[in-house]
């Protein structure tokens, strides 16, 4: 039961409630502070950033770090690539997962238990990094857009989540549609998909987030620099900047430094997420409830 009206609280309860509110406040502030910090660094001069003078607000305000980043064509290229991987990947995922989840939810499917186990098993055991990599190489999918899009398209968790949702819809919808003459594709597209908007929205969200933030395999599988997504670009830049002499700011005349440029890149990468974030809040909360712990 959530907390009640404070008027009915005893003294001990009131102290407890205040303590909790303070602790939550501290944790919330601690969670948010790093973002404010990094934003402040990004708008600070190179010298101030490098010298560690930035605490909460920009010191020696300047947009130079951003100018450096936003004029880098590689940055924009990687942004575009991320869009390609995200949109392409999510579409392919939905195209494969939605019909499969529907099929798995139908009682008339022969070997249903087997197929479900077939999918669920992949959540518990996977062959590991090396076999996956070698497999991609054998399939000639290294260093390709298609490879990144297709090789991470299906995730048994999302499949099972959607399957459970389909199963929760009364069988009589399918039966009525069948009596009305619809075939399975029509039943899925005209009846089940419209009724499953929340669940589909949730897995779409999971797909988008995972694609947008995807780093490791993009780094391993892609060699051509023009195909790398944003996160890999970020990583490369962060690493090279901190080693690069050009960015070590020793003179106060330096407009930007490794730290401020790093911060600027980070801010640019976070912005899309921050923009979408308020809209998706209700979806992922519901989504957790749905996928929850049922596997």
């Amino acid at each position, binding site marked *: *039961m959530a907390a009640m009206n404070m008027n009915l609280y005893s003294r001990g309860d009131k102290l407890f409630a205040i303590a909790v509110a303070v602790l939550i406040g501290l944790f919330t502030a601690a969670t948010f502070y790093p973002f404010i910090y990094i934003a402040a*660094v990004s708008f600070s001069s190179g010298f101030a950033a490098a010298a560690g003078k930035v*605490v909460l607000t920009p010191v020696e305000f300047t947009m130079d770090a951003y100018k450096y980043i936003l004029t880098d064509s590689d940055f924009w290229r990687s942004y575009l690539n991320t869009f390609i991987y995200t949109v392409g990947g999510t579409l392919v995922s939905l195209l494969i997962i939605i019909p499969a989840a529907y099929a798995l939810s139908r009682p008339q499917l022969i070997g249903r238990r087997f197929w479900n186990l077939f999918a669920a098993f992949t959540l518990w055991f996977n062959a*590991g990094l090396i076999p996956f990599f070698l497999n991609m190489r054998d399939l000639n999918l290294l260093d390709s857009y298609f490879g990144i899009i297709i090789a991470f398209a299906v995730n048994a968790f999302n499949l099972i989540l959607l399957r459970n949702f389909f199963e929760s819809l009364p069988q009589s919808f399918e039966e009525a549609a069948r009596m009305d003459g619809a075939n*399975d594709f029509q039943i899925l597209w005209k009846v089940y998909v419209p009724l499953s908007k929340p669940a589909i929205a949730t897995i779409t969200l999971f797909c988008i987030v995972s694609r947008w933030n995807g780093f490791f395999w993009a780094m391993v599988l892609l060699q051509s620099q023009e195909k790398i997504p944003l996160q890999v670009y970020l990583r490369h830049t962060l690493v090279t900047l901190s080693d690069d002499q050009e960015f070590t700011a020793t003179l106060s005349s330096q407009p930007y430094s490794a730290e401020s440029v790093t911060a600027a890149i980070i801010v640019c990468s976070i912005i899309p997420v921050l923009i979408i*974030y308020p809209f998706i809040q209700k979806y*992922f909360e519901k989504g957790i*409830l749905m996928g929850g712990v049922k596997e």
Partner: protein
Amino acid sequence: MINDPKKRHAVSDAPRKRSFKQKLSWFVDHVKNEWQIYLMLAPAIIWFIVFLYKPMYGLQIAFKDYSIFRGVAASPWVGWEHFQTLFGNDQFIRAFWNTIKISALNLLFGFPAPIILALMFNEIINATYKRFAQTIVYLPHFISSVIIAGIVTTAFSPTAGIVNTILEWFGYDSIYFLTKPEWFRPIFVGTGIWQEAGFGSIVFLAAIAGVNPSLYESAVVDGASRWQMMWKITLPCILPTILIMLIIRIGNIMEVSFEMIILLYQPATYVTADVVNTWVYRQGLQNGQYDVAAAAGLFNAVVAFVLVMVANTLSRRYMRTSLW
């Protein structure tokens, strides 16, 4: 009602066993009428086979002397040789123990964090404040590991980072945190909590919402405090959820979000930071020693699998809660 009648109206004497011909014709009708759902299922199954099951076939190189030129089938068997190499390799042994130690820390601090957070959120009275705090606290989950690592690296930077700035205010010398092995684990676990505790609390909040309100109401009448109710009602009622999440967590022990480790570690901190999967990454993907690395990966997966099985069985036997 006395005595159901034995004789029935219109019962057939036909034998019930279906002939093979009947079963075959049923099957043919089934395919004729239902082929569409098999078509719907096919792409997913094919995908699983091509991308997740086929690598399992390739896993056999853990037992072979693998060479790219010969391919999997033609490479000769070497039995357990690679595993012997592994267990004789100091670095691997170290990586294994690091995996265990870091996971233990994660279990000790990282696992309770979302639970405590959920319990605290449950005690917040002002709905707006609660909503606001939740919004902020869920956010880091949606930020990529690269960005999180970038922020952490900047914040702990020896010359530029805020942490050292504050240390210097208090008169301490600055520390190059991310090169110091003894600092790696705390920073790593703390980063994990920052990124995942908030989002992770959603599951527990849902479980708390499912607790029967009358339990609380009768406790209130009996004079219990919120603190007591939290321990005596809330926690016991969400115990099944906690156990399930724990089992899932244990299944992930060997994973240890190695992506984040790669982003935060460096050779100087390998001593405490290197885990099995990062070792596999370097040996396999960077140095090309595919077979030994595959053996290490297999070892990893098997240990994880066994752990989940054991955890699930124990939980089912003693707590009557299990994942399956």
